[in-house]
């Protein structure tokens, strides 16, 4: 058996009930606020989130 990366495969459905950064509508706005603190420019935040989302889904 080879060394496997990453962690075991996840195929579950996330709950919307726990606090999170990806629920609607608060999560989207909170994610943008955090990007502010990280230093992503205002004009690029929505584009960054879109690209980050695609990378997570890739």
């Amino acid at each position, binding site marked *: *058996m*080879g*060394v*496997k*990366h*990453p*962690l*075991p*495969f*996840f*195929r*579950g*459905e*996330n*709950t*919307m009930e*726990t*606090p*999170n*950064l*990806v*629920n*609607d*509508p608060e*999560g*989207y706005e909170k*994610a943008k606020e*955090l*990007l502010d603190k*990280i230093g*992503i420019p205002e004009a690029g935040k*929505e584009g*960054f*989130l*879109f*690209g*980050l*989302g*695609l*990378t*997570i*889904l*890739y």
Partner: protein
Amino acid sequence: MTLQDRVDALHKAIEFKDAGRIPTNSNYWTWMILDAGYKLSEGILDYDKLFDAVTGFHKKYDFDFYNYLGNRNPIRVSNAAGSYLYEIDDDKEIIFVKDHGFMKEDEYPQLIENPDIYQWTVIVNRAATRLHGENADEHFKETVGEMLAYGAATGRIANAFVNDLQVPLASKTRCQSPIELIFSYYRGIRGLSLDLRRRYELVKEACEKLTITQGFPGIAKAVQGPRPAEAVFSLETAFLAHSIMNRKQFEEVYWPPVKMVIDGIVAGGNKFNIFCESEFLRFADFLADVPKGVILFEPEEDDIFELRKALPNIAFGGGMSPDYLGRRTKEECVDYAKKLVEGVGRDGGFVMGQTKMMTYRNDAKPENILAVQEFCRNCK
């Protein structure tokens, strides 16, 4: 050889002019990592090793431009977010990526209403398991940090190619027909195949909306301007979803945004790179009216000799298959390379490359790559 020498040779080939040799394109991907002596997990997760593998590949094989400069398998980002879609098996030297569809079939109205919000709050919500719970903020910062590190790592490689190795980038702008988002990221192959039959009008409406939100009108205008000096093309794209579409669907859903950017590129006198998985011959007439000298088309499973007959106006890249590069002798590879030049590039319009994304160790033998490269350098 300077970067400009390579761009000039590639442009001449695309314009069906004598380049003095046959320019070459690398469609090598994770094969580079294995050839460098690294395990796949090392080359993908350790960005210094990735840099070493990609730059080392060029120093050894010397292609004129590259489809892959480390910009694939962003596993560190998706792991940080908790989407866990990849599994690397270093013993078998394979990367397993699950065909995933986080979008549900009845959610097209939400996608159409606001694609950005829908993607983040519904689809990413389902995939990003670590962006939930008490530590979500810290995990988000970690994910963003990994995204920035990934960008820095691929940027470092691109800078090394342009400035140190004198190799052009393919392009600095990439876009795909919007249905590719639904195909590769949202619904998956099976889901979209069903949707094209059961809810075609909604798929079409979603793609029309995404054409706007993805900025196609702006891209079509931008590509009329000057090409970045460090790039071969003003724009590149990849065709994948056409593989599950019929002609009517292709014409109505896939083609309009592609046509929009091709018109812009033609108006600007620029060049466009199309990488095409699966086969394309049944759609070839869509490219029949594009002026000569604009497109380099890289087919995968098509008979490239048949494509040449169907499209005398289009330059083709590719031709060498893993069946040759991985299993035949050097002499057989060079003989086939001669056949490609004679049959596809006799009047120009040909860049030697590979028919597949070269991934597995057995896809190519190093001596075969070197033999074909030497033939191309000396082919007048």
